[in-house]
């Protein structure tokens, strides 16, 4: 028999190192995962990130508070509204600005709609990763309807920069309420359609059940947040725990899972979309009249101090830690990106599974590389 080095063959044993990404159809961007394989079984993974690093936090230190606001949209670019909300609220907290109720309501409605678009994108690509091609197109059809609302509201569809520090820059357009209601009316039926395609599909069940399990205590230990945490059975949502915007006055439920597997995360996000619709409908139904922006000085110049403010972005806890030195530019802005933290749990979730599961798990964590790398 010929002598072979143990690392270079499949048979003798053991390890094949394969490079997944940064150019790969299903790493959702420029994520690079180095897989250590035994045949197709995963022995370990290492994520290599930073290919999309733009130094957002450094940029922040060289911009005024207002100037930096559009940059945050470019982090999680599928949930730009949420990013903007988090940043604006953090600065408002730093300056103790009171936001008028109308602005709060509009913010809530738009953020919830944004959560739906983000989840739709997740659903489409996640299903695509698992091999179901068609849901992607359905999801984009619905996403389009919501993006139209954004476009009508602020002129942009993706990187919206919808909010200003202290409130809103734009009053809602004519027909805003009707358009949101129309989405709320048609969307549940469409959701049922997706569920018909996937929820009870045997193949879908086999591919997602008991795949990428993250137990509740592990989830907390890994610091994962958002749907990933809730699917593990931890009923924690910042919208309920530490309400911001107008969430305190909204009536909605927090869906949770039991097993913390891919299927539960799927179910949780599907239910979250329904809950978001509920919130959006309540928001437009009770939309108060009044000013849309609070008392904001011409020059944003917060007092010396620091705040950490976090919101429940579609992907989890999105936190902003802002230190002010009393000048017009932030001294330090730290973004606590949910994707970055959630991605850390990938290794734990995929050990012992197969290559195909890695793809499913990456999809189910729902990362956006713009946010992971910042």
């Amino acid at each position, binding site marked *: 028999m010929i002598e072979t080095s143990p690392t270079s063959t499949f048979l003798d044993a053991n390890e094949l190192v394969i490079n997944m990404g940064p150019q790969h159809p299903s790493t959702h961007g420029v994520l690079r995962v180095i897989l250590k394989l035994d045949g197709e079984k995963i022995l370990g993974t290492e994520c290599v*990130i*930073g290919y999309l690093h733009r130094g957002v936090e450094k*940029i922040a230190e060289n911009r005024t508070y207002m100037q930096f606001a559009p940059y945050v949209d470019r982090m999680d670019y599928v949930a730009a509204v949420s990013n903007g909300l988090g940043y604006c609220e953090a600065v408002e907290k730093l300056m103790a600005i009171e936001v008028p109720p109308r602005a709060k309501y509009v913010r809530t409605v738009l953020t919830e709609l944004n959560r739906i678009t983000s989840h739709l994108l997740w659903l489409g690509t996640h299903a695509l990763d698992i091999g179901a091609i068609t849901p992607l197109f359905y999801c984009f059809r619905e996403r389009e309807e919501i993006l139209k609302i954004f476009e009508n509201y602020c002129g942009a569809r993706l990187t919206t920069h919808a909010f200003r520090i202290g409130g809103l820059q734009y009053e809602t357009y004519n027909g805003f309420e009707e358009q949101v209601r129309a989405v709320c009316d048609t969307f549940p039926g469409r959701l049922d359609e997706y569920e018909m395609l996937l929820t009870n599909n045997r193949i879908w069940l086999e591919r997602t059940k008991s795949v990428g399990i993250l137990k509740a205590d592990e989830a907390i230990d890994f610091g994962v947040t958002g749907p990933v945490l809730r699917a593990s059975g931890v009923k*924690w949502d910042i919208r309920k725990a530490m309400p911001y915007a107008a969430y305190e006055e909204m009536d909605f439920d927090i869906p949770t899972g039991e097993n913390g597997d891919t299927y539960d995360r799927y179910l949780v996000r599907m239910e979250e979309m329904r809950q978001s619709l509920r919130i959006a409908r309540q928001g437009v139904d009770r939309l108060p009249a009044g000013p849309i922006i609070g008392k904001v000085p011409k020059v944003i110049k917060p007092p010396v101090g620091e*705040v950490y403010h976090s919101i429940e972005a579609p992907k989890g806890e999105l*936190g902003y830690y802002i230190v002010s030195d009393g000048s017009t530019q932030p001294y330090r802005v*730290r973004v*606590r990106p949910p994707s*970055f933290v959630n991605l850390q749990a990938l290794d734990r979730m995929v050990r012992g599974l197969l290559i195909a599961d890695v793809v499913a798990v990456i999809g189910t964590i729902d990362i956006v590389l713009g946010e992971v790398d910042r």
Partner: protein
Amino acid sequence: MADEQKKEEGAGAPAAPAGGHANPAAPAAPAMEPWDSEVVQSLRKSFPGVDLEAFSFRGQNLIIVPRESILPVAHFFKSELKFDFLSDLTAADYPQKEKRFEVVYQLYSFKRNERVRLKVPVGETESLESVVPVWITADWMEREVYDMFGIHFDHHPNLKRILLPDEWQGFPLRKDYGILQQDVKWVQENLHIQSGQ
């Protein structure tokens, strides 16, 4: 380094007044109100020899913890005070201060539904004990702090650059690192361009 430690210990009287003498050397020190609560008291009781200062600003609470005792304090926060969730771990650079960096821990307790912020001043040449044994999630966050500030974490399982290339020179989020500055050598060697700007 040695005399810095001495200074810390000297200031660390058991019943240290929770007064606002937070590093008088720093001009940009935030003006904050002192904070006292059950959390602070139990902490003081458990760590009598440690100088802990507690503040509150805009309803957000923070505790300044000396560098040496971060690991036991972290353990205490997690197991005794049930702050089982490390939301965020980051740092900030204050070049004027005596201890240049502040490593910031944002803790959250599901049980109390309460946040608290720990701040650890760290000198430029000092290193800090890693809290990965307490919260696994600190792994990547500490790597990012190392990547951006060059603060070294002892006993970290895999302390290397995370966002920047492994061979990159310099730590971009330090205040003396200009926004247009970069590792020109690395860029030339790896991207084959004269300059990125």
